[in-house]
C-alpha cells in the first residue's frame, strides 16, 4: 500500500505541438522509467498514427518513481491526454483523475485556442494548474512575454513556472520538483465503499478489456466483484496493478490516490465507459463520482468498402476498433449507389479521419466515405420530433414543419492582422459574432457561434489558408437552432445518387451545388454517351454540368498481328473499369466520391 502523501497525480495539457509528448518523454527518462535502449520519442503514443501525426489519440497513464531533493521517493502518476477538441470529454475524465496539471506553453507562440480550452477543463476539474514554458531553445522564444500572457489571460501565477526545453532537456529536472511541491497529494478513505474512476480502457486479446482507473475511496483487490455504476455491468476482478511505461505491474491491491488498472475478462469496452465509477457489487457506494455522461457522436458519415465484396471485412474491422474505442458508433446501412456499408458516428472530424485512416491502414481496406453530416432535429407537421443524421432520412415537402441544426461556441485565437479575414470567413459560414478580446497586444481571441454543419464542411482548411496556419480553433456544442435547411440531391444521367446527397442551408445550396457538379465533371471520365450531372432541391434542378460523350477510344494499329498486345491493353482498361462503381449506366471512379468531400475554393 502506497503512502498517499507521497503520491502526485498529474497530467500535461497543451495546445497541439507545444511539446507535451516530448516533455513526457524527458520525465520518463529522468525517473529512469525506461531503459535508454527502449527509449524512443513519443513513447506514450504507441499507435503508429499518433506518432506520424504527432498527436495523442488515446489517453495513457504511467507510474514514475522519483526521489526528490527532500530525500523522499514519490510516486508520480502521469496521465497523458489527447489534446484535440474531439476528445474533450476524455480529456476532462483524465483530468478528473488528477490533482494537478502541467500547462505547457510554447515560448515562441504563446497561448493558443487549445491552451485555453484545456486550461478551462483543468480548472473545471478543480486541478492545480502549473504553467511550464517550453521551447526556450527556439530563437524566437520570449519566455517573459509568454509568462505575462499566462498571467494576464489565464490569471494564474507564472512567476515560478519552469522555463525549459523539453527537446534539449534544459531545466526539465525542475519540473519534477515543481510537481512534488505544487501538486496536492490525493486524499481518500481506504475503508470507505469503493469508488474508482474509469478514465480509459483498452482491449487486449488475451486479458480482455484492461480498465484504466484512479482509486478515490476504498480498496480494490483481485477477486472482488465489481460493478460499473452507469452501465450496471458486473465482473469478477482477475488482476489489479500499476501501469509502467512498457509493462503492467501486478499488485495485490489498489488503494486511494493510486492510478492503475484491473482486468476481469471483460469482452466489451462499452461495458467500461470512460467516466463511469467502479464500485463493489456487495458494498456499493451511495454516490458515483461526478461528471459521467454518455458520449454523443457529433459527426456521421457513411463508410463503404470500395469493393462491395469486402463488406464482411469492414464489419469485422469496425467491431475490432470498437473494442478499443467506445465512442465509435456504427450501424449497417445500404445505399443504392454504394451497396452495403455502415453509418458511423464520430466525436468530430479528427476522430472521423482517424477511424477512417485506421480502417484503411490497420485492416487494409479501401473505403468510400460519404460527406459528413451532423445530427439535425426534425419537427414534423404532426408534432413528431426526430433526430436525423443521414441525409437520406431528411424529409421533404409538407411533412416537414421545420428543422433545427446544432450550433457550437467557437473560440479562435489569431494574430490580430488576420482578424478581418477570419470575421469574413465566419460571416460566410453563417457565424454569429459574440465578442473579441485581446490576449496580448498582437493577438486576439474571437468568439463566434457557428453551425456545426459549416465547421465540418471545410472550415479548418479555410481557416488555415486564410491565416497561413497561425490561427487556432476550439469549439464546443452549445444548442440547436431553427434553420432554413434543404436536402441537395445529385443526379447522374437523370438518376439520384443517394450517396452524394447532403443537407445544406438554403442560401448555401446554389454555390455548393455548382461546385460539386464541377468537381464531379472533373472526376468522371468520358463514357459512351453524354452524362448530365445535375444538382436538385426537391426535384428542382439548380445546377448542371455535362460530361461529354467519349469520342475516341480505339486501338487502331496492329503491328504484324500482335493481338496479344491489344488484348493486354484491353485487359488493363478492364481492370481500370473495375475500380469504378456502376451507378445505373454511369461508371463513377472512387475519386469522384472523394473529390466532393474536398470542395475547397
Amino acid at each position, binding site marked *: 500500500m502506497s503512502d498517499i502523501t507521497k503520491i502526485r497525480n498529474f497530467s500535461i495539457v497543451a495546445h497541439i505541438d507545444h511539446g507535451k509528448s516530448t516533455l513526457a518523454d524527458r520525465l520518463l527518462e529522468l525517473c529512469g522509467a525506461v531503459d535508454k535502449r527502449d527509449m524512443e520519442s513519443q513513447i506514450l503514443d504507441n499507435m503508429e498514427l499518433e506518432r506520424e501525426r504527432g498527436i495523442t489519440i488515446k489517453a495513457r497513464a504511467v507510474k514514475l518513481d522519483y526521489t526528490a531533493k527532500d530525500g523522499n521517493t514519490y510516486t508520480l502518476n502521469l496521465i497523458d491526454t489527447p489534446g484535440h477538441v474531439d476528445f474533450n470529454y476524455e480529456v476532462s475524465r483524465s483530468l478528473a483523475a488528477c490533482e494537478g496539471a502541467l500547462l505547457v506553453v510554447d515560448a515562441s507562440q504563446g497561448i493558443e485556442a487549445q491552451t485555453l480550452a484545456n486550461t478551462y477543463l483543468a480548472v473545471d476539474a478543480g486541478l492545480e494548474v502549473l504553467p511550464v514554458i517550453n521551447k526556450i531553445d527556439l530563437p524566437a522564444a520570449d519566455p517573459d512575454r509568454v509568462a505575462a500572457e499566462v498571467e494576464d489571460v489565464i490569471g494564474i501565477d507564472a512567476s515560478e513556472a519552469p522555463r525549459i526545453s523539453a527537446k534539449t532537456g534544459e531545466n526539465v529536472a525542475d519540473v519534477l520538483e515543481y510537481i512534488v511541491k505544487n501538486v496536492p497529494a490525493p486524499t481518500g478513505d481506504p475503508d470507505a465503499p469503493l469508488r474508482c474512476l474509469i478514465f480509459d480502457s483498452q482491449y487486449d486479446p488475451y486479458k480482455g478489456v484492461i480498465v484504466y482507473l484512479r482509486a478515490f475511496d476504498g480498496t480494490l483487490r483481485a477477486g472482488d466483484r465489481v460493478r460499473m455504476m452507469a452501465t450496471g455491468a458486473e465482473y469478477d476482478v482477475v488482476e489489479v496493478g500499476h501501469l509502467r511505461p512498457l509493462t503492467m505491474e501486478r499488485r495485490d491491491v489498489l488503494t486511494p490516490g493510486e492510478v492503475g488498472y484491473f482486468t476481469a475478462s471483460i469482452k466489451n469496452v462499452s461495458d467500461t465507459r470512460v467516466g463511469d465509477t467502479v464500485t463493489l457489487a456487495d458494498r456499493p457506494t451511495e454516490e458515483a463520482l461526478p461528471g459521467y455522461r454518455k458520449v454523443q457522436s457529433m459527426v456521421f458519415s457513411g463508410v463503404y468498402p470500395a469493393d462491395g465484396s469486402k463488406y464482411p471485412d469492414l464489419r469485422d474491422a469496425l467491431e475490432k476498433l470498437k473494442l478499443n474505442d467506445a465512442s465509435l458508433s456504427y450501424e449497417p446501412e445500404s445505399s443504392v449507389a454504394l451497396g452495403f456499408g455502415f453509418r458511423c458516428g464520430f466525436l468530430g472530424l479528427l476522430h472521423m479521419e482517424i477511424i477512417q485512416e485506421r480502417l484503411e491502414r490497420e485492416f487494409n481496406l479501401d473505403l468510400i466515405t460519404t460527406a459528413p453530416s451532423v445530427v439535425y432535429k426534425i419537427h414534423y407537421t404532426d408534432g413528431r420530433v426526430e433526430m436525423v443524421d443521414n441525409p437520406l432520412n431528411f424529409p421533404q415537402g409538407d411533412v416537414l414543419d421545420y428543422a433545427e441544426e446544432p450550433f457550437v461556441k467557437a473560440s479562435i485565437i489569431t494574430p490580430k492582422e488576420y482578424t478581418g479575414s477570419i470575421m469574413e470567413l465566419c460571416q460566410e459560414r453563417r457565424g454569429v459574432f459574440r465578442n473579441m478580446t485581446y490576449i496580448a497586444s498582437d493577438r486576439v481571441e474571437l468568439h463566434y457561434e457557428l453551425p456545426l454543419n459549416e465547421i465540418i464542411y471545410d472550415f479548418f482548411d479555410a481557416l488555415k489558408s486564410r491565416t497561413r496556419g497561425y490561427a487556432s480553433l476550439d469549439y464546443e456544442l452549445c444548442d440547436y437552432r431553427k434553420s432554413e435547411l434543404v436536402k441537395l440531391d445529385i443526379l447522374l444521367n437523370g*438518376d439520384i445518387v443517394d450517396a452524394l446527397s447532403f443537407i445544406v442551408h438554403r442560401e448555401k445550396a446554389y454555390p455548393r451545388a455548382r461546385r460539386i457538379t464541377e468537381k464531379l465533371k472533373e472526376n468522371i471520365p468520358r*463514357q*459512351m*454517351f453524354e452524362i448530365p450531372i445535375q444538382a436538385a432541391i426537391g426535384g428542382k434542378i439548380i445546377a448542371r454540368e455535362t460530361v461529354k460523350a*467519349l*469520342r*475516341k*477510344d*480505339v*486501338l*487502331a*494499329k*496492329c*503491328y*504484324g*498481328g*500482335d*493481338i*496479344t498486345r*491489344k*488484348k*493486354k*491493353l*484491353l*485487359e488493363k*482498361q*478492364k481492370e481500370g*473499369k473495375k475500380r469504378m462503381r*456502376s*451507378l*445505373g*449506366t454511369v461508371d463513377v471512379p472512387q475519386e469522384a466520391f472523394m473529390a466532393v468531400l474536398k470542395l475547397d475554393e
Partner: protein
Amino acid sequence: MAKHKSIVRIGGVSPSRTRIPRSSSAIRSGNLTHSAAHPGSQRRLGLYIHIPFCRKKCSYCDFYSLSCGESSDFDTLSERYATVLERHLTETAKLTTSPVDTVYFGGGTPTVLSTRQLTRLLSVIKKRFKLLPGAEITVEANPESALPKTLKALRRAGFNRISLGVQSLSDHELERLGRIHDSDTAKHAFQSARDAGFKNISIDLMFGIEDQTPESWRDTLRRAIELHPEHISCYGLRVEDGTPLALRASTANLADDDTQADMYLDACDVLADAGYRHYEISNWAQPGMESRHNLRYWRLEPYIGFGPAAHSDCFGARYSNVRDIESYMRGIELGGAVLDEYEDIEESERAFEYVMLSLRTTDGVDLDSLSKRFSAPPGDARELMRSLTQQELASYEGGGRWCLTERGWLISNSIILKVIDAMSGADRPQDRNS
C-alpha cells in the same frame, strides 16, 4: 476475358533448349494440319516476314526496328539476317502442309534489304511452302526506297501488292514525323510502282500529326485519292512511351482526341465519296481489293511470323519471337529457343478474341453462332447491341450479325469491353436498373 495465365516466358537464347515449346505438341510433332484445321477444315496460312531495319527511325515509332546507321557493317548484318530467315522459313515449312494464301513482308522497311535478298527469301517461300496460285504477296516500302529499278525487280520476283508508307502529302508534316521523304517523292514512288506493274497498291496515311489541321488532312486525303490507290490505311497518331515524340509531346502542337475523332470521320466521308469501302477500323479499299493478309488477323485465321518480335497465331496458340535481333539470329543459327511469349488459347479466350477482332471489321460479330463456335452463349450481348444501335454506334446486318458504325469504331475499346461484360452477364444488375 480469361487471364493470360498460360503465357510462358521462354525468351533468351538457350542452345540447350529446343526452339519449339514443349507445351505445344503440335509444333514439336509437326502435326500442324491437324491443329490448324481446328475448328474448320484445311485452313490457309499467312506468312509474315519482319524486316527490322529502317534507314532512319521515325519520331513516333515504338516498333522493334534498327536504324541501318546503327550497324557499322550493314551489308554483313543484312546478309546474315536474310540467311537466318531463310533457315527459319525452311525449318518451319517442314512442320506444315497448309497452303499459304498470303505473304507479307513488313517492317521496319523491307526495301532496305537488297532486291536480291528479298527475291531469295520469296523464292524460299515458294519452294518450301505450298504457295497458292493467286496468293496475295505484299511488300511494304517507304517512298524514298521505292526506286523504279527496285520496284520492277520486286514485281518480277512475284510480289503483287505494295504498301507505301506515305503518311502525309504535306512536307511540313512529314518533317515533323521525322520521315526522310517529301510529298513529291511519295507521288513519284507511287507512279513508279504503277509503272513497275503493281496493280494493287496501298498507301498508309496518318492523322493527328504534329501541326496537322483538319484542312491539311483533308487535303492529304484528296491528293492521295487522286493517285487512285486500290487500298488506303489511315491511322491516328499515338504518342508511344519512349519515342522522341513522347519527349516533346507536352509542348508539341498535337490534335486532341476530339479533333482526331473529327479527322477520322472526315476521312470516312471523303473516302466513301471516292468509292472506297471502309472494311476495317483503319482500312479502306476499292471493292474486292481488301488486304487478305490483314483480314486474317481479324478473322482468327492462322499466320506465322518470322523475324524478331514477329507474332504468330498458329498451332492453336499465339506466340512471339524474341524482340532482339541478335538473340533471334543466334537462336536460329544454334538451333536454340527464339520464343518470347507463348500462350495456349482456350476456347473462352477465343470467344473474346473473336468479339474483339470481328467487331473491327464489316464482317461484324455473329452472335447467333457464338455458342456453336466457342460454346460461349451471347448472354445479354444482343440487348446491348440493340441499345448501341439506337445510339447509332452499331447496326444489325441480318443473320445474327452486328457491326459497329464508324462512330462505334472510334470508341470500339469501350464497346468491346461492354460486349464481353454482357456476354458474361457482369453488367446485368446495373442494366436492369437503368
